């Protein structure tokens, strides 16, 4: 019997990076994955890979910025898989800007993906999670725990995810469910590969958040996710678990 046999995991951001690695890890441990992403091609590639490896996965192209889409996606997961044991809010975006460059559009996009999407998918999934006594994991970031120059909107959304996780944990502390977050440091994914550092960035300000150890691999975040979402972590609730090679220890 594997840890995730008979479990349904609704995961966002599975077309790439941490989301894909998490879907692969949980599927390898027996879970049925219901994967969401805005990137249709990447989503199909993840699904094909998991099916080829003998895992179970279905998927739905979903833009988490839309409240209706979040609710429709949770509903589709329940129809396809019978319920929801685990929700992983993994999709997210990041960029660098000077404060004066941030447009209303930039701000709204960052908030809608990283914060609004997390909240409304959680809202949609919660009744099902409660029914199965399951759990939720949000992917925050070291940026939610420290002040990072040139990423003010990103830090704001991730700080919000940190405290939203704790507030949700308190509101549901009398229910037999768990709600936690993982705060990764730098991870080698397309998010970091495509991250454009400002041409005139002051590197002395960035040094504080680039860290000393090499970046993590998405599989390392997936292994933490797989522990934290399992019954072995039954007493971990309302926690923000840092996995950042020592970045936030300093």
């Amino acid at each position, binding site marked *: 019997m594997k840890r995730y046999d008979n479990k349904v995991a609704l995961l966002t951001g599975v077309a790439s990076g941490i989301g894909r690695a998490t879907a692969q890890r949980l599927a390898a441990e027996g879970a049925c994955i219901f994967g969401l992403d805005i990137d249709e091609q990447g989503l199909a590639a993840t699904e094909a890979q998991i099916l080829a490896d003998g895992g179970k996965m279905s998927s739905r192209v979903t833009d988490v910025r839309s409240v209706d889409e979040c609710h429709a996606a949770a509903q589709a997961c329940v129809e396809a898989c019978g319920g929801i044991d685990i929700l992983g809010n993994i999709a997210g975006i990041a960029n660098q800007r000077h404060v004066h460059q941030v447009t209303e559009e930039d701000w709204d996009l960052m908030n809608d993906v990283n914060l609004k999407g997390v909240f409304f998918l959680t809202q949609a999934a919660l009744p099902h999670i409660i029914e199965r006594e399951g759990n939720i994991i949000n992917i925050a970031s070291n940026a939610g725990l420290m002040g990072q120059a040139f990423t003010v909107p990103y830090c704001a959304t991730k700080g919000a995810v940190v405290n939203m996780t704790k507030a949700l944990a308190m509101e549901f502390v009398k229910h037999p469910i768990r709600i936690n977050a993982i705060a990764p440091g730098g991870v080698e994914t397309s998010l970091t590969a495509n991250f454009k550092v400002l041409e005139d960035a002051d590197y002395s300000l960035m040094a504080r958040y680039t860290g000393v150890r090499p970046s993590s691999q998405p*599989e390392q975040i997936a292994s933490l996710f797989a522990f934290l979402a399992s019954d072995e972590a*039954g*007493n*971990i609730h309302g*926690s923000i678990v840092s*996995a950042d090679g020592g970045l936030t220890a300093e």
Partner: protein
Amino acid sequence: MSEQSETAFTDHRYVGKVAAVTGVASGMGRCIALRLASEGATVFGMDINAEGLDEVATEVADAAAAGGAMHTRVIDIADPAECHAAIAECVAQHGRLDVLGNIAATSWMKHAIDVTTDDWRKMFAINVDGTFFMCQAALPHILASKGNIINIASNAAFMGSAYLVPYCATKGAVVQMTRALATEFVKEPIRINAIAPGGTDTPMNRDYQLAENTDFKLLKRSMAFRPLDKPEHIAALFAFLASAEAANIHGAIINADSGMTAT
């Protein structure tokens, strides 16, 4: 660091590994010794309670199907020279040290006004000095094996708990000691983390005697909504965190307290 998971899933992660663990005669330490041995570790189990140590060693011997075992060493961790001697003995016996778990500690409730100099120094000697000098003694061996250290802190490090002033101070010290050590060794291929449990069903928690004339209004936040945690959960987290599966977790303080510190 960038090392990959040795085994995908949670089975025999500790075959061939040596783990020095304090406080194994009781509570969480006992569960951690059993868990690591069941995954194949050789446990060098330390405690001040000789009788309890022997009992746990028997339990480990009965349960260690995966080839794990436990060797015992009676010690008062309040003595830094003893910490160094015990770690030297462990390495002399087993040739290496992969994991150090600082679990042993003491706790009691008292009004701050009633805490004597002796009370204060004793609690610091066990909870803080014991943890630090074990780390200091183990570090050269942990560096040699590219191993890791886990300290047990507490929710009390993050909450200002009435009648637990010295305990809160010692656990705050364990948290900051862990973070500072993590930074000092960030360029080395080792990991140093802490677990901060909440109220857990162990003799320590069961034996708490309330301070005289306790004002229960001040203990409100300590009255958790969820039942006491099982020490086996702390052991499962320890076994994950000390394994290669947690290779990028360094300098982290992991709260495992059923939501106690979320508010």
